[in-house]
């Protein structure tokens, strides 16, 4: 025993040091220290049978990328407060679906355009409940899968889907090894593929080992540090959706064409998917196409596309509206050629990244306006 005493002493020291570090990191999370001090970024994502990945329910923590914000994932796995199922009578429940722009992890819940539009609607005597169904890196297929499962369960009165325009205009067959994607089926029909479920990473993360890992991530700041330090392999919870997003955007050529009569099979599959819930009922939908200003040179071309998409969707859905989000945002901004990039980015990174305070304010105004118009047109 005496021989092992030095080793035992040293290992005890290492353990005490580790516990001390864990304590320091937790102490730094005290308000307002977390705004500047060294803290661990929380792990919000986990495997999901329907969408490949999603937020793990009932999680709290700090998001540090781009800006710092304390965020909470509710019991049903959405960012924001809990909500009742079914909705309270007399409440207009709106589900906003989209990627990280909707997810808005970079700011506190009360600063997101989701919560701000809820306040604006209530201010206008509409008792609304706006739910955040944003998910970082969500493609059209992921959003459709999310609508079929998570959104459908929340029984919303209205869905607002923010979709990147190249997703619909290019509408290419994708890769479903990490999360759902539109692929060619066995008889060449377009289906929403779920090959990711067979992936080793997904199965590991969904198994006992995954449960242990996520338990550690939920209970130790140091585990989060390790996870963020080496976000590859088994630890790769989200399959780097942001990277996928970037590569999609980088690879996407400029395209400014859509015809409801000559739609490609993938385009038809996307619109069919958005038009029906799993039980065959139909949602009321506002489709907001983003990034059209980078796809088309003229406003006339953009208007034509919006009309064509509307024609295609209105054949499938009785209550639908289609927006060119960039155009609507521009009308809310001052100047003849408003610069939308000022709505994105924080601090020195103004112009790139996610919505900043100004962006959230403007998005909230636009969303509120769109919801109010939709209610007037489709009572």
């Amino acid at each position, binding site marked *: 025993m005496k021989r092992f005493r030095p080793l035992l*002493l040293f290992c005890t*020291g290492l353990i*005490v040091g580790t516990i*001390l570090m864990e304590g320091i990191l937790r102490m730094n999370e005290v308000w307002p220290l977390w705004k*500047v001090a060294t803290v661990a970024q929380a792990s919000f994502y986990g495997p999901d049978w329907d969408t490949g990945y999603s937020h793990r329910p009932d999680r709290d923590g700090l998001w540090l990328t781009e800006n710092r914000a304390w965020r909470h994932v509710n019991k049903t796995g959405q960012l924001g407060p809990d909500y009742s199922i079914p909705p309270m009578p007399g409440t207009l429940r709106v589900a906003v679906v989209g990627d990280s722009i909707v997810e808005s992890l970079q700011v506190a819940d009360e600063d997101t355009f989701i919560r701000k539009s809820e306040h604006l609607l209530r201010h206008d005597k509409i008792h609304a409940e706006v739910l955040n169904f944003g998910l970082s890196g969500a493609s059209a297929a992921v959003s459709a899968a999310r609508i079929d499962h998570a959104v459908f369960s929340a029984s919303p009165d209205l869905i607002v889907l923010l979709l990147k325009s190249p997703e619909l205009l290019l509408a290419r067959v994708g890769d479903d090894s990490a999360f759902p994607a539109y692929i060619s089926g066995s008889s060449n029909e377009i289906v929403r593929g779920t090959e990711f479920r067979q992936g080793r990473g997904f199965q590991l993360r969904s198994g006992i080992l995954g449960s242990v890992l996520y338990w550690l991530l939920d209970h130790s700041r*140091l585990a989060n540090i390790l996870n963020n330090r080496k976000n590859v392999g088994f630890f790769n919870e989200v399959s780097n959706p942001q990277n996928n997003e970037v590569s999609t955007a980088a690879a996407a050529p400029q395209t400014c064409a859509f015809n409801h009569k000559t739609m490609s099979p993938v385009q038809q599959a996307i619109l069919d998917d958005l038009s029906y819930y799993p039980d065959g009922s139909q949602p009321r939908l506002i489709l907001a196409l983003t990034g059209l200003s980078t796809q088309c040179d003229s406003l006339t071309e953009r208007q034509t596309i919006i009309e064509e998409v509307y024609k295609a969707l209105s054949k499938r859905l009785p209550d639908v509206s289609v927006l060119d989000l960039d155009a609507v945002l521009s009308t809310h901004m001052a100047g003849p050629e408003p610069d939308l990039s000022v709505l994105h980015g924080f601090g020195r990174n103004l112009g790139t990244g996610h919505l900043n305070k100004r962006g959230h304010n403007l998005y909230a105004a636009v969303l509120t306006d769109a919801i109010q118009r939709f209610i007037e047109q489709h009572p």
Partner: protein
Amino acid sequence: MIVTTLLVFNFLFSFLVTKSKLYLAFIILVNILVLFIFKYESFFISGVAGYDLFTADIIIPLGISFYVFQMTGYQIDLAKGRCSVQRDPIRFVIFVMFFPQLIAGPIVRAQNFMPQIDNLARIRKRSLKSTMLPSLALILLGLVKKIYFADSLAPHVNDIFARGPEDAQTAILGAWLFAFQIYFDFSGYSDMAVGMARLFGIRLPMNFFQPYLSRSPREFWQRWHVTLSQWILNYLYLPLGGNKGPWARAFAVLLITMGLAGLWHGANWTFIIWGLGWGLVVFLYRQIGQYLATIPLAGWLVTFSLTLGLWVFFRSPDLHFALSYFQTMGGGAPTGDWAVSFNGWNGIFIIMGCLSLLILHFAESKLFRAPVARILARRDGLFWQGVVIALILWLVLLPDLNGNPFIYFRF
């Protein structure tokens, strides 16, 4: 390639510099020429204002300013007979390339460092025993300064200097935070270098002694980047004549020395003005310092305020920005659109945070006292070594250092 060539040249010339001043002049010229080509070429040839070293992607050999100065100092000391020539090329390489201090100092003098290299083989494990914990504690202190403090301040400083302050309080906050960011960043590196060297049984000089507690500009330079200050004093300021002669001459020498010290940091007018500004401040303080000394805290307050002001030049991307920044600091037109809200609790917390940085600075001065050293030496055992090593390892894992490299790696 550059480093090897420099090492070979300097090693060979170290045998010749004692024989003729021509050899000394030649090797100094070679060293300065290499530094000039790799660091200042664009500045002098194109006449541009220079790089913004805080944002530009610069490519210069890592640590070149430090080892070129160290080798030049060695050649001068050899020529003056202050040290003896190192005949062993491996020991010479260790002197120049000793990894803990290679990139950002401390700059060491041959007469202090060479004997320690000669003694390395004779160091026994037992003699290192009571220095393990103090050495590890120094590394830990350096990491805490860099990762916990400097890297936490960096995003806020970068936002203010990238977007430009909109109001006076944001501008003052930017200068204040940068002053502490650069201190924690650079002194953190130096502490780690000293700590790591001590693990090998080598004692490097401390480079920082809580500079923001200085009561005069002269004292500031005795506490800030001490080894560079001494290098400049010994190899530039004193050979140029120092404080001797009429006041105009002394002033000119001071300006030249400090201007060159500023230029050493990088090819940008902002660094030169920063250096010249320090020259002016030191000179003026010589004239009025005695009066300020009679008023309690006045010396400290004036020195600290001037230091903050001069850091604005140092951190600004160009002179135009720096001047506009000063205008904003004084309540004039905004430099940019970045405003930090001082409303309500936010303002109270910001002020408390800024003051606590100063208090920490004061508290740090208490760390380097004999009782602390005695406690560390007494507790030097496997348990406490384990605790400190665990903290060091976790701190290393904390940041993404690519986002916040050491500031002085750029120089």
